[in-house]
């Protein structure tokens, strides 16, 4: 496939707001996870909450979009001059030639959960001020971002659970390749809500402790929240030697089970191989793999089989979910930003919270940061329903 340039990117997660804080947390191996005291949630677990979300004010004219998810989106948009980069891209290509493709799993679900508590006792009606389209609906975050960035290109929200904001890269790549658009704002925004906290708890998939990906005693995820945005552009005719590029994408379905991965990682392996083929790279060309690594027993063992079947056991791998928590529909975009920082700053982030790597897992799991000259990284994202996506980022030759 034709590589696309990551012209600008930013993220807000429990590790920090913007690239400087994110990079500092990664380099200092600082986790954003803390015991859960979110809203009225009474589950013993750790979460990755983004500070400052509720203090964020939406721009004038877009206040109807006010909900935790869109406040989190706005908080990230304000970092790293991202909006200025988009404005400059839109001025160059035209606002109709810049698309918006974002991933989320629950969008503004929290707003609906709160509205149900405030139902009219007599009629059962939701509060008058509750705005379904601007807050609850999955598309609300894309509609908000379109308007906040004054863009007029094609737009959609991708909802494949935990691979949502990885798959938007493939979607945008196809639109640019087909000539529909020349640039796209891709990313993911997913915010804490009761549905995911109580839902993953009901499946016995949340850990009491900070999640421990690939650990012998791993026992579930830590739910996080994040917003991450990336401006993808058709590259200039001559390749820009310094720019980080999206080099390959791969997508597959497990066709196995709604909430468990295929035990041998069949779909994961297919998406990894497709991404390598699209990037015209061999497994040995990949310097670092940012794993999906949720810290559930089944994900990590299936992913281990998929990764080692393609790469063997020498490629350095880690999951950054011990630092960020599992940002669900925003995880793919957040981890894309982490991969871009790893390439730019020449280091491989070690996985936090893991103390003893499961001896039954064979991939080369990094627990400490390692300095390295990184050319190519692979990032895996796998979702409920068996929706897999692998992305390759790097600096082309």
């Amino acid at each position, binding site marked *: 496939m034709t590589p696309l340039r990551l012209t600008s990117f930013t993220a807000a997660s429990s590790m920090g707001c913007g690239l400087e804080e994110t990079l500092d947390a990664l380099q200092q191996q600082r986790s954003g996870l803390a015991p859960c005291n979110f809203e009225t949630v*009474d589950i013993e677990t750790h979460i990755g909450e983004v500070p400052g979300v509720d203090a964020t004010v939406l721009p004038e004219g877009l206040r109807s979009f006010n909900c935790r998810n869109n406040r989190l989106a706005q908080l990230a948009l304000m970092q790293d001059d991202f909006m200025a980069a988009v404005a400059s891209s839109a001025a160059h*290509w035209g606002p*109709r*030639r810049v698309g918006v493709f974002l991933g989320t*799993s629950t969008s503004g679900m929290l707003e*609906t*959960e709160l*509205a*149900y508590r405030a*139902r009219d006792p007599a*009629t*059962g*009606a*939701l509060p008058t001020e509750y*705005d*379904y*389209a601007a807050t609850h*609906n*999955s*598309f*609300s975050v894309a*509609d908000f971002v379109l308007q906040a960035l004054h863009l*007029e290109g*094609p*737009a*959609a*929200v*991708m*909802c*494949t*659970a935990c691979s949502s904001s990885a798959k938007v890269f493939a*979607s945008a790549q*196809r*639109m640019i*390749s*087909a*000539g*529909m658009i*020349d640039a796209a704002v891709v990313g993911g925004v997913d915010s804490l809500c*009761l*549905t995911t906290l*109580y*839902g*993953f708890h*009901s*499946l016995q998939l949340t850990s009491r402790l900070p999640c421990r990906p690939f650990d012998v005693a791993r026992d579930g995820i830590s739910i996080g929240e994040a917003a991450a945005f990336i401006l993808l552009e*058709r590259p200039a005719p001559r390749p820009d030697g310094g720019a980080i590029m999206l080099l390959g994408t791969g*997508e*597959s*379905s*497990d*066709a196995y*089970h*709604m*909430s468990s991965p295929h035990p041998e990682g069949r779909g994961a392996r*297919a998406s990894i191989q497709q991404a390598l083929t699209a990037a015209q790279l061999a497994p040995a060309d990949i310097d670092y793999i940012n794993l999906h690594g949720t810290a559930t027993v089944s994900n990590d063992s299936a992913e281990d089989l998929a990764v080692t079947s393609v790469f063997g056991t020498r490629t350095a791998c880690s999951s950054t979910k011990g630092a960020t928590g599992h940002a669900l529909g925003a995880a793919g975009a957040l981890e894309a930003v982490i991969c871009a920082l790893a390439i730019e700053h020449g280091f491989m982030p070690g996985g936090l919270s893991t103390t003893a790597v499961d001896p039954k897992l064979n991939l080369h799991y990094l627990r400490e940061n390692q300095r390295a000259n990184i050319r190519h990284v692979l990032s895996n994202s796998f*979702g*409920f*329903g068996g*929706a897999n996506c692998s992305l390759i980022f790097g600096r082309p030759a």
Partner: protein
Amino acid sequence: MPAMTPLTAYIEGIGVLGPGFADWPSAAAILAGEAPYVAAATVLPLPLSLPPAERRRTGGVVKLALAVGFEATTRCGIERSTLATVFSSSGGDGLNCHEICRVLASSDRQLSPTRFHNSVHNVAAGYWSIAAGATAAANVLCAYDASFGAGLVEALTQVAVERTPLMVLAYDTQYPEPLNAKRPIPDAFGVALVLAPDARGTSLAKLTAMLSDSGAERMSEPQLEAMRASIPAARSLPLLRKLARRESGRVTLDYLRHARLALEVEPCS
């Protein structure tokens, strides 16, 4: 600026289910003016394609998507397990969402695991992949009222770029109260189109798409226009009418606030 690749695809199979529409042949007869439209609530069939244990867990949105998906791939010459898919819906499973919110607003917040896994927007795609044994990419979109257009744009770009056949499905079901008052969708409607990059002996029509500033075409019959305007997946009706009448020419469909989708339709022999 690079030239825009024409977004062209050939329709290989159609599935429809909605109020008064039992399947594509009967819907086509109505849309072609050969049979009267008789309003009737949508009947969602049991998804017999799923193993019994899975079948019991499925909600309306899965039944609807699987029904139109199986119809579209039954009268088509492409093996369904090989198709990539694009699913698009303006909301998830409305009843399931209501039940989750009701439980979370109560004093006992124990969610059922089945409720939770049915709450993901890609639940229909997950069950489709299991029922059809489809391991290719499944993309699952939401674009509120623009969901049919967004699904078709995603599908057509994928066919144009990957040069492989796929199926696009758009479907919506209604919410119970109190959400229905905030998002009134009168009944369930689903449509599925199997698209291929090149003409085959069995192709039904050629589609070429571009973005447009024109207004969206309406349905002349008031009941069908009400359906088009109130159910996002039924924004496809003007296209389905053209296909039913085997007419060639342009049809403009509703899409985003700032753009419509213009389609050149050309029936194949």
